[in-house]
């Protein structure tokens, strides 16, 4: 017991003395690999993807860290596709130079991608994102009459707010064969429930918007309705949790994805007639 205490003291005293003498502060984490800052997202709305990349600087005033030799790639973990990105020197708005990496592809709904940054084949920083999966549209039977007619929808599988929602009505004006797509903006509608994202379509009001778009009066009855679709922009989980950087490894900043969802359904024929349209939907 006594020997144990003495041994403990023999270890403790030099340790305390060593600690007591050390008077330096290391403000910077020592790391052999470079930490990166990346900002960008994969966007289904375009065929060209862009991500800004920067090596972390050791202090505020130091020059940007060279990215020479840095390799950037994305891997589509759903189908295994690998895309190599190319660097591009860009002039920033303040006249200084920055580095962006560019790749030509369009991501797919529901696919998971990793964005890898490294040197000499060794990945040093990584970011992942999953483009939101397409929801299943569950339409309810329209209710109400004329301009008050509404249809309740549940987008099953969707957990976050769909944005820039548009209803796309494909119609033919009376006595014309040419089809026109009339878009009605809904903004960021609905609410989250246990079933999914729920929202309401105002079919009665949309009819007046369609008539107005076609230059017709409100009593026109013989418009043919060919197709009904919803288009919504879906943001990945990272957009809802900004600041958390949960999807970044040895990297900082932001990396997410944007998907575009197009989904259609048939409106009940009797409801179409009540709206004053001729039902010409093909999926019936």
């Amino acid at each position, binding site marked *: 017991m006594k020997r144990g205490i003495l041994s403990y003291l023999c270890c403790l005293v030099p340790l305390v003395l060593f*600690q007591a003498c050390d008077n330096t502060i290391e403000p*910077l984490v020592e790391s052999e690999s470079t930490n990166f800052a990346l900002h960008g997202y994969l966007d289904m709305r375009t065929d060209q993807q862009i991500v800004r990349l920067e090596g972390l600087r050791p202090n505020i005033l130091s020059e940007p860290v060279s990215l020479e030799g840095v390799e950037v790639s994305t891997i589509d973990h759903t189908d295994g596709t690998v895309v190599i990105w190319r660097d591009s020197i860009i002039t920033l708005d303040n006249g200084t130079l920055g580095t962006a990496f560019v790749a030509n592809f369009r991501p797919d709904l529901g696919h998971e991608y990793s964005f890898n940054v490294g040197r000499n084949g060794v990945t040093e920083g990584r970011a992942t994102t999953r483009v939101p999966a397409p929801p299943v549209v569950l339409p309810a039977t329209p209710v109400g009459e004329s301009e008050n007619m509404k249809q309740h929808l549940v987008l099953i599988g969707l957990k976050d707010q769909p944005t820039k929602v548009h209803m796309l009505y494909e119609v033919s004006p009376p006595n014309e064969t040419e089809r026109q797509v009339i878009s009605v903006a809904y903004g960021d509608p609905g609410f989250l429930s246990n079933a999914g994202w729920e929202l309401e379509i105002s079919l009665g009001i949309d009819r007046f918007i369609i008539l107005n778009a076609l230059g017709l009066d409100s009593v026109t009855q013989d418009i043919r309705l060919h197709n009904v679709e919803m288009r919504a922009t879906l943001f990945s989980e990272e957009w809802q949790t900004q*600041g958390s950087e949960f999807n970044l490894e040895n990297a900082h*900043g932001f990396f997410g994805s944007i998907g575009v969802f197009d989904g259609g359904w048939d409106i009940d024929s009797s409801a179409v007639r009540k709206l004053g349209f001729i039902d010409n939907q093909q999926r019936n």
Partner: protein
Amino acid sequence: MIYAGIFVGNLLEAPPNQALRFPSPLIFGRIGKSRHERDGYGLMSIKPIWLSVALACFLAWFTSPVFAQDTSSLQGRVLDAESRLTLPGATLLLTRNGVQIGGQATGPRGRFEFKDLSAGTYVLTASFVGFQSKTDTLDLPLTERLDMYLAPVQTFLEEILVETQQLDESRFVAGLETIRSEDLSRVPMPDVSYDLAGYLVTLPGVVSTGDRGGQLFIRGGTPTQNLVLIDGMRVFQPFHVVGFYSAFPADIISYADVYAGGFNARYGGRISSVIDIKTRNGNKEKVELSASVAPFLSGAQVSLPVRKGDTSVMLSVRESLIDRVSPGLLGSDLPFRFGDRYAKLHSYLNQTSSLTLTALQTHDEGNLATGGDLDPDAYRKSTWKNAAYGMKYMYLPESQAVMTSLSVYYSSLKSRYRPTRDELRTSDIEDVLMSIDFTYLLGPNQIHFGIFGNTNFFDYKLGRLGTAGATGVTSVGSFIEGQFQISDYLRIEPGARLEIFSRGLKNSFGPRLRLIFQPGGQGGHHQFSAAWGRYHQQIVGLNNEQDVSDVFTVWAASPNNTPVPKAMHMMAGWKGRPLPWLELTTEVYRKNLSSLSFPVFGTVINKVAQFSSVNGYAQGIDTKVEITNQDVFFSLSYSRGFVEYNRPFQRAKGIFRPSVGGATYLDPITFNPPHDRRNQVNIMFQYQLGANKLGVRWQYGSGLPFTQVNGYYAGLSSEVEAGNTDFVTAPGSVSVSRADPYGSRLPSYHRLDVTYERKKTFTFADVTAMVGLINAYDRANIFEYNIFTGNRVDQLPIIPSIGLRVDVQ
């Protein structure tokens, strides 16, 4: 009349039937001596230290219970001389040859008993509220029971109120350390006057940010979780900007109760600790005057009778000089200025009531930019001003042992802080408290009941952060606490506090419990104590925790619909006196903490725009060894502590209002907050040789946590948020990538202070001269380090110090 409060406070806090035996008059000759004698300037003889220690060992051994022979007991009763009824709760003091042998209070039937007394002549004094004290000289052993009859007093209050505080040294209460005014002189200070702050940092479990900033962390709690009271008045910034000094001059302090946790139900509104300071009254018979001059702090204090015997006034003024003398003394600027003013009027209104008026004002001013040569462009003048005013009326009816007090207090703190030269942050808080307290004296048991109302006003502006607000919160509540002597061995102190708020928490209920167990009964050599309680804090103080030392606190009410900070304390301890000159104390504690507000540091540098809610705990063990004899005092304390916070996944909150803009979600993390000091050692040594006194203190504290940086980059999150491609060419704002929160540690803190004093007594005054060295081996202890700029500000370098004090007779 304030002394009536003190008197009752003693009854409430001192274990009844207390009869600790002090077998060696030599060893315990300090007890009961005059102040001069206690300070070592009176009748102390000059002895080599080894002789004292050897003699003390010998006497302690020789007079220990094993060798005690031919002992007897002294039994008796205390009775009312008129009614012949027994007097439960009367106080008895037993002395022999002028040395206190023991003291106790009578039991429910007015009985008392002193055990294990050797034969000889003793003096026994009995006293009780409303009765004249009586002293008998006794030759033991007695053949029969002793009855002492006390006569009711005619001049009621004058007789019963005790003008000097006599604390029971032997009591041991888990979580509580009672500091007497004479204790303060044991700590070397940079001037000849002493200070509570200097002593507090020597207590195990108390972590200080050092000699600048004036912040104390007590057993895992933050400074804003400490309740500091002076004569019942709340003081929000209790320490001066130079951390050596509290806002309370040592000369005015009678004693201070420091509850490191597990505090009583009479205290509320804070979740960590309580520092309850009681001041002494001015002299009602003659004028007292003292003054001291020293580079750091000079002051004067006067006490004078306004109406002789009834009313006194005490005034104290202190003012720092260090900013004016530091260039010459230190070779560099020390741009801090601070001071305080204190006034107290105490009056016996009649035989049954008294009135106390108290006022305290403090001011602090400092340039926190740097402690070295100042760049005029970097000048950051920051100020703090405390004000506290109080009135207390006490009434003690002649026929009932129920003391009533009515108190009204007002406190305020106005802070002005400049994080940069061009930015000013302000925070004001005002506090109004009214209370009525009743103390029932039921023999050896007491019940304390009170009702109170409290209103706080807050006004803050956080500069360029853009957050400003003015809010308030009002509460009413009551508390009850009891002290019940179950047996000679066991005392139970249950309590509860109920408070209803106008916002936020709505209501809180805080049960409290304390147990005190003495296996050997009164006079036993070992005591055990345990305490438990639940605590809430409705008003919160928020600091920027990323700084090593941040003296700016924003006070505000907890937001509505947000859980307020809560804590549950558990602590238990043992105090033993195996030898008369040796005292050992050990305490273990755990505080479970929940719903604490903690800043969220984003990627934007120096911006604290959001807060998170964290839970956590603080636990540790504090041990202390004290050796005391006539010439030598030695104290060694060691604290092992551990503080951990955990933050669950959540959305960050704005400061006092919902966050605007995009939501920031926070990942779950576990970390050690910046006051998690794992190891702390404090050694104090004092040697008195006649009129000479040498004081030495060495402190060691292991390094505090801080957050390292991975690097810096151009932040573009706000551009990316828009979902367009503007981010591709946006220059962005300088952002920082932080490593794991508080994952690294600063260098350890240690410092040696040495002072030497010599006192000379003249017919008209006592004159004390002091020379000293603060930070004697010039340790560069860190005070502030800016991880972004690398700018480091150290605490005070080696400082030679001199001082002169005059106490006019």
